[in-house]
């Protein structure tokens, strides 16, 4: 299937406050939130992006929604370069591409009623007022908020987390988007509620034919939603494969650590100790070569000098590690 979103060598740097020594040296440090990311999201696909905090997942999601501009590289949506999506085209894009926030408790303005929260995107998009009530009602129906008009006059604090997340989704769906970026959509929710929201996410994707990118740190959850998973480390994609491959046969040493770290609800399934130590290094000063090398149990001299490129290792499975590629070209 054709790609809906294409990213080519996308780079995003954020300037950071300079330390005294950096001032003296005249250095201009930057956080390399994304450092050359290339992938496609096929039309109608559900793709997960997983990785540790700070690896650039949210930044990537925001770039795909044109909420921030890349420092380098190119992104296109439905064949059109994002850089050229401006003016009227941008308004159309805003209707088609929606974000579901990380935390439903922060996503809604506490002073606005639930109705106002959901109708707002319609107002912003300049949709005829006569259509508002029907559209809002159908969005509430989609997210299975029964007796939805009962919620209209309430304020966010009067709803449970699960209800709030449904409202947040109704808000994202009210314009009938074709592309959804969900940033940790259920991480703040309860288990039982979460199971319901996950089922709902699957359902709306299928019934509305949505293309979706789910950002999460939780491989266990992603398994229930996405056929394909991209693993990110320090602003780069290190592995890209079908989710079951990632979970059952992770190839990149970082992915192996991610899988090992996932706790399971069975105390008799002992979890292996973490195969890696330390933390994600300061994104201002990533190690040379492979940025994972200071934590990698398999690091070799070559890893310090050569940045491994993301290369196919098997059908639909790409890995960026020197272990998984021929030693000499």
């Amino acid at each position, binding site marked *: 299937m054709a790609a809906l979103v294409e990213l080519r060598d996308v780079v995003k740097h954020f300037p950071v406050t300079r330390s005294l020594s950096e001032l003296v040296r005249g250095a201009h440090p930057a956080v390399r939130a994304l450092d050359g990311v290339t992938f496609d999201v096929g039309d109608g696909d559900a793709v997960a992006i997983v990785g*540790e905090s700070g690896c650039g997942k949210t930044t990537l999601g925001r770039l795909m929604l044109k909420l921030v501009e890349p420092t380098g590289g190119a992104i296109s949506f439905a064949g059109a370069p994002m850089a050229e999506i401006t003016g009227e085209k941008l308004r159309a894009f805003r209707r088609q591409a929606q974000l579901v926030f990380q935390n439903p408790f922060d996503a809604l303005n506490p002073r606005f009623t639930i109705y106002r929260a959901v109708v707002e995107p319609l107002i912003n998009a300049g949709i005829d007022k006569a259509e508002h009530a029907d559209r809002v009602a159908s969005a509430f129906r989609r997210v299975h908020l029964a007796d939805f008009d009962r919620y209209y006059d309430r304020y966010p604090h009067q709803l449970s987390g699960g209800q709030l997340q449904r409202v947040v989704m109704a808000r994202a769906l009210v314009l009938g988007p074709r592309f959804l970026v969900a940033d940790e959509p259920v991480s703040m*929710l*309860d288990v039982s509620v979460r*199971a319901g929201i996950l089922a709902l996410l699957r359902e709306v994707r299928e019934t509305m034919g949505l293309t979706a990118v789910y950002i999460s740190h939780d491989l266990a959850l992603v398994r*229930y939603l996405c056929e394909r998973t991209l693993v990110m480390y320090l602003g780069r994609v290190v592995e890209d494969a079908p989710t079951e491959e990632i979970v059952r046969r992770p190839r990149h040493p970082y992915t192996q650590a991610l899988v090992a770290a996932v706790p399971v609800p069975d*105390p008799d399934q002992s*979890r292996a100790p973490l195969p890696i130590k330390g933390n994600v290094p*300061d994104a201002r000063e990533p190690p040379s070569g492979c940025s994972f090398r200071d934590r990698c149990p398999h690091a070799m001299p070559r890893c310090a000098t050569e940045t491994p490129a993301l290369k196919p290792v098997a059908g639909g499975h790409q890995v960026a590690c020197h272990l998984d590629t021929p030693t000499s070209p």
Partner: protein
Amino acid sequence: MILEVDKLQIHYSTRSGVARAVDGASFVVPEGRIVGLVGESGCGKTTAVRAIMGVLAENGRQAGGRVVFKGQTMDEATTRRLRWRDIAYVPQSAMSSLDPVYTVGSQLVEVLTKRGTHSRASARARSAELFDLVGLSERRLADYPHQFSGGMRQRAAIAMALALEPSLLLADEPVTALDVIVQRQILDVLRSLQQRLHLSMVLVTHDISVVAYLCDEVVVMYAGQVVESGPVREVLARPRHPYTMGLRNAFPDLLSDALELVPIAGSPPDLSEPLSGCRFVPRCPFAQPACSIDSVVTGSDGHRSACRRDAEADTIRTAALDPRTWQRSSSFAMS
């Protein structure tokens, strides 16, 4: 027992009446052990730990029961004396409670000098130690909260609670919004603290996997009450209460072959309504008329369950494994 919570009742007065957020909850924390407090949101976990810490919301009050810490029944004065020094607390929203206008380091120094007896110089040294303990680079002390990712903010919040080396740590969802590697590292830090300092802990979480990984004992709460408690292995391998079984089913499992999560239909009851009998009745696939009359706690030392059909726990457990069981109407009862 470092901590005994006995028939604790916490009431919130609200415009719509009294909400019995904790309604007769009893559990114990053995010295040097980690107890997981699990349950859906709104079932009273946060209220219970805030009550123990003595930091209830303005409209909350202890309406009954006792909290006994190291043999001493807690009242307002003892709570105030022990707070932060002997009992520390990582609030649920700790991550977002950092002040945006001060560096994280200066906030940590503030905690150490205000709550503890540190001089500013020793507080700075201790801050570096604490940062190291939770896996943050010392250099990051000079950063402002907005320069931290979510995970880093949570680590800083945990560092603050550990500042005065308490003997009992109450941690409310301390790893909930964190990615798995950081989560594992923090859980490993907590475990090493437990072992090194003989720290006792109450870990509030809705994540059964976290309980399975870290905790020795588990206390399952539902609607302000404890419905099941016991050693983690026992309770998770052979849950006796249908609510625990339901929670287990709703939970994603990286290693399972089932690609379907089974929600427990419905939601916990409104705690400002008068409730009698087993509070799980409206959602329980195994409910019988008698369940609404009263609730019974069965089991002794170790594994306890508040299901009146406890004698049938083994058959119920088998039936609970079938997703269809949870789709049937709530009045479904096994013959």
